[in-house]
């Protein structure tokens, strides 16, 4: 039998694409992730949780004593610590997701050659990507759970809506992770990875994390409002005090759209990322 088989390329039907790129066994990638977490040094796992807590204690309590209160959602005055706590949660969700989808993926792809081993089995690029994004979200979930408990324990939340910060942290992480993986497919060296950090630092500093954006001229404010982190910070802040307005839907919508676009983008780039 020397049957003539059409060479189906991605894009000629979702079903054909899945048959070519997935064995439907992403679960095995997740199983491997959990096995690694169990073997991993717990100091490292825990340290990811402490970073935002340290920031909160230093900035919120130390600097807070020099700043006093700040205008929170809806204009009500809240303590400086209560102002930055939700912002730190959004930032930590972003940082974790970006790290897992760029640096971590790049390292496993080009240096540890882990994905080469996986792709020599029936697993396809789709399974590997889906499994890894799931693991990134799981880590994000653990950290969000811990940090939310800390800020609630410190009395920095005033509403039961604060519980919704945990799933929202996952949504923020999904948005950044899906985009990050697509971007990683264009990288060839570690040095290029530095530029991601250089881009993330100003976003962290200016997205109304540590101070309101009203200090900037209007044009700069519009620019910041176009960036994803600002929407994440504002959304988290509104949830922490249970104050909602029309913009809440805008912030939420921003991340839904970003995730959908990110997943689409990453899907298109999967073959370029993993198969060369």
């Amino acid at each position, binding site marked *: *039998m*020397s*049957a003539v*088989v*059409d*060479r*189906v390329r991605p894009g000629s039907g979702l079903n*054909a694409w899945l*048959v*070519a*790129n*997935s*064995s439907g*066994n992403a679960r*095995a*990638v997740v*199983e*491997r992730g959990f*096995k*690694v977490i169990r*073997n*991993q040094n717990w100091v490292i796992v825990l340290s990811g949780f402490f970073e935002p807590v340290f920031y909160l204690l230093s900035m919120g309590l130390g600097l807070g004593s020099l700043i006093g209160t700040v205008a929170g959602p809806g204009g009500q005055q809240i303590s400086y610590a209560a102002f930055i706590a939700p912002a730190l949660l959004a930032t930590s969700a972003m940082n974790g997701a970006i790290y897992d989808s760029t640096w971590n993926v790049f390292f496993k792809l080009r240096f*540890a*050659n*882990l994905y*080469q*081993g*996986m*792709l*020599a*089995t*029936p*697993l*396809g690029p789709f399974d590997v990507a889906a499994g890894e994004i799931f693991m990134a979200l799981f880590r994000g979930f653990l950290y969000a759970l811990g940090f939310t408990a800390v800020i609630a324990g410190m009395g920095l939340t005033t509403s039961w809506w604060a519980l919704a910060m945990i799933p929202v942290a996952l949504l923020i992480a999904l948005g950044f992770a899906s985009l990050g993986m697509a971007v990683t497919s264009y990288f060839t060296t570690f040095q290029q990875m530095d530029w991601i950090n250089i881009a993330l630092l100003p976003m962290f500093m200016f997205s109304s994390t540590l101070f309101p954006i009203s200090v900037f001229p209007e044009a700069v404010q519009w620019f910041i409002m176009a960036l994803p982190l600002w929407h994440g910070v504002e959304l988290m802040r509104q949830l922490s005090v249970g104050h909602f307005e029309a913009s809440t839907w805008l912030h939420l919508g921003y991340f839904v759209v970003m995730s959908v676009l990110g997943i689409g983008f990453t899907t298109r780039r999967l*073959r370029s990322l*993993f*198969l*060369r």
Partner: protein
Amino acid sequence: MPVIEASELTKTYGELHAVDAISFEVTPGESFGLLGPNGAGKSTTMRMIGGTTLRTSGTLLVNGLDPEVRGPEVRANLGVVPQQDNLDVELRARDNLIMYGRYFGLPYSYLRPRADDLLEFAQLTEKSNEKVDNLSGGMKRRLTIARALVNEPRILLLDEPTTGLDPQARHILWDRLFRLKEQGVTLIVTTHFMDEAEQLCDRLIVMDHGRIVAEGSPADLIRRYSTREVLEVRFGSDRNAALVDRLRSFADRIEPLPDRVLLYADDGERTLEAVRKDGLVPLTSLVRRSSLEDVFLRLTGRSLID
């Protein structure tokens, strides 16, 4: 039905033609070799068979399926030993085998005893709970080969399987591969060691610069492209080149190399005698059987190991 059919298979990276329109077939149970120096396109061909490198053009069928269209199904039949070990350094030795089996969707009830058998096969039973980083180079290689067998593959792709192994370990591995072959497993081996190709392969293609330059069984290739014996003589760095013209009359064919001159003849000892009688006294001399190395030299003018 052939297990692998490649026709005009091509892979280019920009200007570089890594694999340049090669065609070949592999029949079930056969032990098939790709022989050539580094950069000849052997590994790229292997990765295209698994569908982990996308080809530029040509057709390729593995068990009648296109690996780019039905990758998961194709790879479920394959065991892959890559040129560079890519063990999971975050897992221990035994877990490497078990997790790899999970990627094939195999149940733990099958994998646990299978992992123990394979550790024994690779002589790594004592190391089963060791971190991969703490294994020696040879142990890692054996673990990689054991890992490729976890799904009981019908086709085994071995990319430079014995590079980095000591001579004893190589012979043990060759023995194990023979046993798999006896049980009907198709072996596809790339190598730049001629002795490995001669030991393992029923049939092979010789590759250079992405092209197939010859095809046949080892014995057949030697018969076609070389003489029965080879005489190697050394006269010292300066004189080798100077004496080439005088030596030419003693052999069917002559290959001057930087450090020695090869004289191709059916009877090496007699040729050496003739050379001596002519008043030429080499510093050292050696008579040996022709090998695939000589075939490659003849076909490309270059040595296999660079």
